[in-house]
């Protein structure tokens, strides 16, 4: 690792000030950033650890919405987001227990890894990502692999999910990393169905609009029968070809619909 200082502010305001310095970078749970630093793929001068900021930790729910602080770790979401069972279940299947004790929802959404789990939940739920400056709709937030609407130094302070009538996240695990080879999050609301796919596209997480249309009329796995997904633009690597991933998108969507509760 290159050398850098670590600061641990205790408020969002102080963190924002610290992030204003040249080459400062936020440190969430470090489960992605520390490996990146070890590979010398990042060279911040200051890491601003968010782990001492209590105001961005915790889970609360009211009026059909569940709100999770940006600094909340995956284990806490798994334990406390029972009001949105599919979301708690997703958190409980990220990595392993030690990763879940450190990694945070804010870090996952800021990173927007094309195979990460939370982006699928946020997009399928039409979540609102709140930062120290503004609210961003999930539909505007994800802008391609590792790219988001966040500005330099902007901090994800909370994420708010409207709780659906029924939902499920189905993850086909890449057997070595246990990230999703393809993961599909289906959420059924009173007036719409949303389907978000992670792990598959070179553009990162995306909504499968044909499936949403088919499921809006008939929320059953059969409704997807006639649809197909093209392998063009799908990630192709040693774990699976683009065509294989495209096939999995439909399989995992069907499983998610069947499992949605």
């Amino acid at each position, binding site marked *: *690792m*290159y*050398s*850098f*200082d*670590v600061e*641990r502010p205790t408020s969002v305001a102080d963190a924002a000030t610290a992030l204003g310095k040249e080459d400062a970078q936020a*440190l969430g749970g*470090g*489960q992605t950033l*520390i*490996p990146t*630093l*070890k590979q010398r793929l990042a060279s911040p001068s*200051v*890491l601003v*650890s968010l*782990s001492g900021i209590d105001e961005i930790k915790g889970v609360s729910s009211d009026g059909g919405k569940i709100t999770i602080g940006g600094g909340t770790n995956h*284990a806490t979401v798994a334990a406390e987001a029972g009001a949105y069972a599919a979301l708690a279940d997703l958190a409980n299947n990220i*990595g*392993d*227990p*030690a*990763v879940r*004790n*450190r990694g945070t929802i804010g870090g996952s959404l800021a990173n927007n890894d094309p195979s990460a789990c939370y982006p699928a939940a946020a997009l399928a739920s039409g979540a609102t990502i709140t930062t120290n400056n503004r609210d961003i709709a999930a539909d505007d937030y994800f802008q391609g692999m590792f790219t988001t609407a966040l500005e330099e130094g902007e901090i994800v302070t909370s994420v708010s999910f409207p709780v659906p009538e029924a939902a499920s996240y189905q993850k086909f695990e890449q057997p070595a990393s*246990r990230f999703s080879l393809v993961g599909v999050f289906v959420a059924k609301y009173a007036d719409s169905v949303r389907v978000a796919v992670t792990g598959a596209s070179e553009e990162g997480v995306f909504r499968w609009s044909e499936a949403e249309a088919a499921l809006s009329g008939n929320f059953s796995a059969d409704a997807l029968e006639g649809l197909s997904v093209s392998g063009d633009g799908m990630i192709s690597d040693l774990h699976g070809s683009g065509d294989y991933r495209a096939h999995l998108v439909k399989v995992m969507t069907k499983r998610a619909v069947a499992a949605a509760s």
Partner: protein
Amino acid sequence: MTEVTMVVNGKSVTKSVKGNTLMTEFLREELRLTGTHVGCDTSQCGACVVHVNGEAVKSCTMFAAEANGAEVNTIESMENPDGSLGVIQQAFQDHHGLQCGFCTPGMVMSAAALLKDNPKPSEAEIRDYLEGNICRCTGYHNIVKSIMAASGQDVSNIAAE
């Protein structure tokens, strides 16, 4: 350099650390607590698992500066006060839960974290919990068996010796 103070295995320590000092380096090189092992240094293997404020974490993927004010427990804290092996350690010895022993500190610390929340885990729950702990030697069966035995459960029906 930043000054950090934390309680490690019941003793308060204060040291000056660089920003990029990992918890593994801090424990092994500053405090000479070499029971915590570094297998991969890439957050995959779990040989470095320690408890920070009671929670299992991979100490190769945390900075010492982040543990300021924390309570840290390592494998060295698992022995009994008289220096004999603690319950989980003894069960690993009794049930051949280790061969080369490299993964064992992490296995024992993960097991301890599991048993704290779930005092009588099923075999499936143990296997699931150990997802982030890799062992190159044992094939896992005897590790699972050791943890079941440490939780006071009958292991006579568990496969493989």
